[in-house]
């Protein structure tokens, strides 16, 4: 069977499914990429048993069949010399001949019989459809706060809670917490909650495009995202997500409004001297001055920013990285921070937008 297609298109397919290739696995077939040729379509699939990614593109070819492609093919295609690629596949002995420009590869494919295919044609209907660009922005503001430490699996997930006309996304690593609410009068969700691995969402962020819609279809233990020609499925976490909203304070003791970009640069400079696991830097707010300081074994620095202050003066120590994380993902000109004394949380908000909060617990100096 002969397939001809532009190198860019083939690369897109392989680069996308590569995100689901297992780094190491005891199940041999899944170390490969499944290629299915059916009718007018080519489908590439990879899985690590937690996530499956498929890309389906239209292509005219002369026969049908299935084959496992070795993972090396991803890099091989990336480095091919010409803009077009011809692939000749023999489904009898799984031989793959790749020709591009003056370059000829022969790869040894494998029998696809044992490749676990979890994808099914009867995927449930989507419950939500959003612009990819919007969804990307939302995920960027949420996913970073989820934990990568596997000792508390619930916090490896981002909670999606649907009810009536609202969706709430929650992520936390126990030191900080993000809550993003989305409201749309046209929505009418049945109450449901899905705990999606943050790892999957980080991969999703890498492969989503800027144009077109993305649909979300949850089903028993899986959630499927569909966009462009991509089908992205992930297992959901079954852990119970603790009730974290209770920690969000309703009143503040100190509130400041300051310029986000200047603040970000200041924290970046202070962070250079922060050390140890806690990366502590010091905020001191008094008389409409916002001082950013740090003192460590390496040395010390301080600088001050303009801010408008409401409420009492406050001094607090906080992890520089936790602060940078939020300042980097926001695009607004100004940021609002509520303080609750020296051992209470810092709550970051976007001025005029009640739908998003980022809460960080401070560092207690002994």
């Amino acid at each position, binding site marked *: 069977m002969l397939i001809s297609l532009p190198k860019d298109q083939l690369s897109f397919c392989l680069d996308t499914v590569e995100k689901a290739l297992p780094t190491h696995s005891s199940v041999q077939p899944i170390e490969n990429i499944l290629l299915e040729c059916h009718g007018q379509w080519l489908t590439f699939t990879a899985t690590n048993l937690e996530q499956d990614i498929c890309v389906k593109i239209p292509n005219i070819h002369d026969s049908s069949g299935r084959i496992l492609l070795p993972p090396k093919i991803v890099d091989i295609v990336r480095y091919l010399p010409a803009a077009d690629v011809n692939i000749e596949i023999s489904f009898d002995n799984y031989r793959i001949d790749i020709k591009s420009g003056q370059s000829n590869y022969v790869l040894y494919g494998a029998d696809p019989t044992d490749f676990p295919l979890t994808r099914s044609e009867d995927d449930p209907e989507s419950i939500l459809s959003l612009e990819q660009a919007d969804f990307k922005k939302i995920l960027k503001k949420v996913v970073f706060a989820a934990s990568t430490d596997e000792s508390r699996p619930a916090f490896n997930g981002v909670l999606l809670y649907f009810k009536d006309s609202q969706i709430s996304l929650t992520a936390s690593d*126990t030191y900080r917490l993000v809550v993003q609410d989305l409201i749309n009068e046209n929505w009418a969700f049945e109450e449901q909650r899905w705990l999606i691995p943050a790892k999957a969402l980080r991969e999703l962020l890498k492969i989503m495009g800027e144009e077109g819609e993305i649909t979300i279809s949850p089903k028993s233990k899986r959630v499927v995202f569909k966009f462009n020609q991509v089908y992205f499925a992930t297992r959901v976490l079954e852990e119970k997500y603790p009730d974290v909203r209770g*920690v969000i304070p309703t009143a503040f003791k100190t509130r400041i409004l300051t310029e986000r970009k200047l603040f970000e640069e200041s924290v970046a400079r202070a962070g250079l001297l922060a050390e*140890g696991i806690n990366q502590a830097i010091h905020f001191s707010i008094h008389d409409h001055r916002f001082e950013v300081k740090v003192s460590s*074994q390496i040395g010390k620095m301080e600088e001050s920013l303009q801010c408008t202050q409401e409420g009492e003066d406050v001094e607090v120590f906080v992890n520089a990285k936790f602060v940078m994380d939020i300042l980097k993902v926001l695009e607004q000109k100004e940021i609002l921070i509520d303080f609750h004394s020296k051992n209470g949380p810092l709550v970051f908000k976007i001025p005029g937008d009640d739908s998003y909060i980022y809460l960080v*617990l*401070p*560092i*207690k*100096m*002994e």
Partner: protein
Amino acid sequence: MAEAQARDIILCDLDAFFASVEQRDHPEYRGRPVIVGGSASSRGVVSTCSYEARRFGVHSAMPMARAVKLCPGAIFLPGNMKLYRAVSEQVMALYERFTPDIEAVSIDEAYLAVPRGEGLKTAAKIRRAVRDELELPLTAGVSTNKLLAKIACGMAKPDGLDSLWPEEVPQKLWPLPLKVLPGIGPVSAEKLHRVGIKTVGDLAATPESVLVQQLGQAAAAECRQHARGIDSRPLEPVRQAKSFSEEQTFATDVAGPEALKAVLMEQAEELGYRLRAAGMRARTVGLKLRFADYTTITRDVTLAEATDRDSEIYRVTVQLFERCGGEGPWRLAGSRVSNLETSRQLTIFAPPPGAVKEDKLGEVRDRLRNKYGTEVLFRARRLAGSEAGHRKPGR
């Protein structure tokens, strides 16, 4: 070394520090003997006394009961460590304006290094600043090494400034009695007196072989160096403790695991106390065991979250003991905490009620221990440790 030689060393010593702070904050104490320390009824000792009290023969480390007898009219105070520590920090911050090279020796003493030739001038400025800004008396000794700066400081006390340069050693240092040298205590001085060595000059002139007989090899060499005003110790800038450890070699080997665990509990309580006193928490907890045949093992575990709790340290050392402790008898058991942190990232979850209870218990025990200088409260598990011999609870 070239760099070290190019600098002057200043020893700054706050005179009768705790008592001076009290006299500063309470004008009614000024000019009167002030004695800060434990209480006479609980066998406390004097930690600091003002110069007025010293005239009555009171000195630090003296039993309080004796101080009361010598100077019954004194003002006796239990002391306020929190305040003294805060004042000490102010003083250190003041030193930092003059030089970044500071070695804090204790709460009231620090060595400072400044460029060669600026020692006396800087020391005078520091004394003035401490007097003007903090209203505290300070004595400074200046030289080119720590030993001579320390001796100069001793000569200048109280509230004075003096220098002792290496070239002045023969005239200024040699006529002085042996006790001016750090490291020569009453016992060594007595030994040397017996062979006719009475002054620092005598010591400098004595052949090393004679000193070796009296003091042993290492001490002899050091004493002779010191008598000649030579000291190569570098300035060691503020260093945080990197670990705390406790170990015990048993008078007779311990055979039973329960007795060994009791020792581990005692060590956990001690390490917990030291961590809390230093305001630190440890991420790594380790165990050291020596078996009857002298085989020694050390094992450690790094925790997800740093701790200063006795029970957590004990839980880990016992777990290590059960995993790697093998069969007794054991000759030695040691516990160690390292990977120390001075700050704690708070979490959105309140700590479990058990932990809060233990923190409160730890606080009460630490307070009692600070007050009585010895443990008055301990965990019952340690009673099983009587087999392990010394350091029974309630000692």
